[in-house]
């Protein structure tokens, strides 16, 4: 598409000059929004440069998400950057083939990415290398049906409603705690503050409500 018109964005020539081949493609959509598709293997390096290089200085990661176009096409990881100093935005995308859903985590650069990457991992199944605590965030840890936002995932889930209900109700209390918490809570007594349930606290140990 508008392969040329993106060039007026000052970051595009700078990126191309600095990273050369790693900058694969850039386009302008929705009038004035510039996206640049870069090599997924070098995403961390590129974003770090965009964040720290004074002429770029995209210090604000607005959003991190992924897009599945379906039909076996590669998944896109999308980074929305915003420079507070220059008042510019840039969208950086990296494409991941379905058989290699792995990309470097940018959590060391932006703490924002912590939860956003966990969400992408949860809903798309993309692994983020170097993420300190990569586990599901929205779905239960034991969710067995897959990654909901993938196009091959049916809207109502893979299991029947009855099976989903049964699985939900069958959960054990321990399923509600991550290993770290189990480790912390193992020795001392667990107390549950939920709903002021003090009476149950001693007898019931931790309840999930």
């Amino acid at each position, binding site marked *: 598409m508008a392969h040329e018109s993106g060039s007026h964005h000052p970051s595009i020539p700078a990126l191309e000059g600095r990273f050369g081949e790693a900058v694969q493609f850039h386009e302008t959509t929705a009038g004035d929004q510039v996206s640049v598709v870069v090599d997924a293997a070098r995403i961390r390096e590129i974003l770090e440069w965009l964040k720290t290089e004074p002429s770029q200085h995209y210090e604000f990661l607005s959003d991190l998400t992924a897009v599945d176009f379906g039909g076996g096409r590669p998944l896109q990881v999308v980074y929305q950057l915003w420079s507070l100093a220059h008042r510019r935005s840039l969208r950086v995308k990296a494409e991941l083939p379905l058989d290699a859903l792995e990309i470097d985590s940018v959590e060391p650069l932006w703490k924002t990415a912590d939860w956003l990457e966990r969400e992408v991992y949860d809903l798309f199944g993309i692994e983020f290398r170097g993420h300190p605590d990569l586990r599901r965030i929205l*779905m239960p840890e034991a969710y067995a049906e897959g990654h909901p936002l993938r196009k091959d995932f049916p809207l109502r*889930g893979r299991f029947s409603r009855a099976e*989903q*209900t049964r699985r939900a*109700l069958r959960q*054990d*209390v*321990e399923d509600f705690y991550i290993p770290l918490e189990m480790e912390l809570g193992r020795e001392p007594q667990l107390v549950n503050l939920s709903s002021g349930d003090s009476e149950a606290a001693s007898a019931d*140990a931790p309840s999930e409500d």
Partner: protein
Amino acid sequence: MGLNDDRALPGGGRSARSGGLFGAGGPTFLTTKVDFVVNWARRNSLWPMPFGTACCAIEMMAAAASNFDIARFGMERMSFSPRQADVLICAGRVPYKLAPVLRRIWDQMPQPKWAISMGACASSGGVFDTYAMVQGIDTIIPVDVYIPGCPPRPEALIYGLMMIQEKVRQETLADHAVNRAEDPRAVARPRAGDAEVKGLTGPFGNSTRQNRIAGLVQSDRVDRPDDRLP
């Protein structure tokens, strides 16, 4: 109208058994008077347990605020502790991740207890027929009153609470076992038989049918013997 006249019973003559003044099993002069007093006390001091999750919870807060003020019905004491509550108001969407929490809170409430399903999402899943959502909390807990709306207005919530009051008024201690049944299979099953429900909803193939037919039969309370940590 004699004492044993079924039409005089609060339940509208549900029980055909006759008991006389001190008869065993059926309603008697004594039990109906006790029923009256007990029901009067119960229905005018219902303590709601607000299980608010989403939009409906905001309307529930509006109902508690000054313009609507459910204190007028003896319900201003929002009991955030399930152990000290009578009415569970499930206001909002209930995803599967929250389902065991809802069930557990219901289990923690002492008898007698009632449940209100407030809003379309709690009653049927609403517009959210997705992988994450429980399609109606009556597959998890028995529900007494369903309040339609997305979200229902505070007046609707108050009306629902008044329907609970009316339900309490008509209860009799003689039917304790039925009124206090907790298995959603027994209580929340639609009045119509499975065949009728199927006939009504089948052509549309909607998820309500999936649930009513398939979900209820199998959503028995599961045994959780290992519910506590070592």
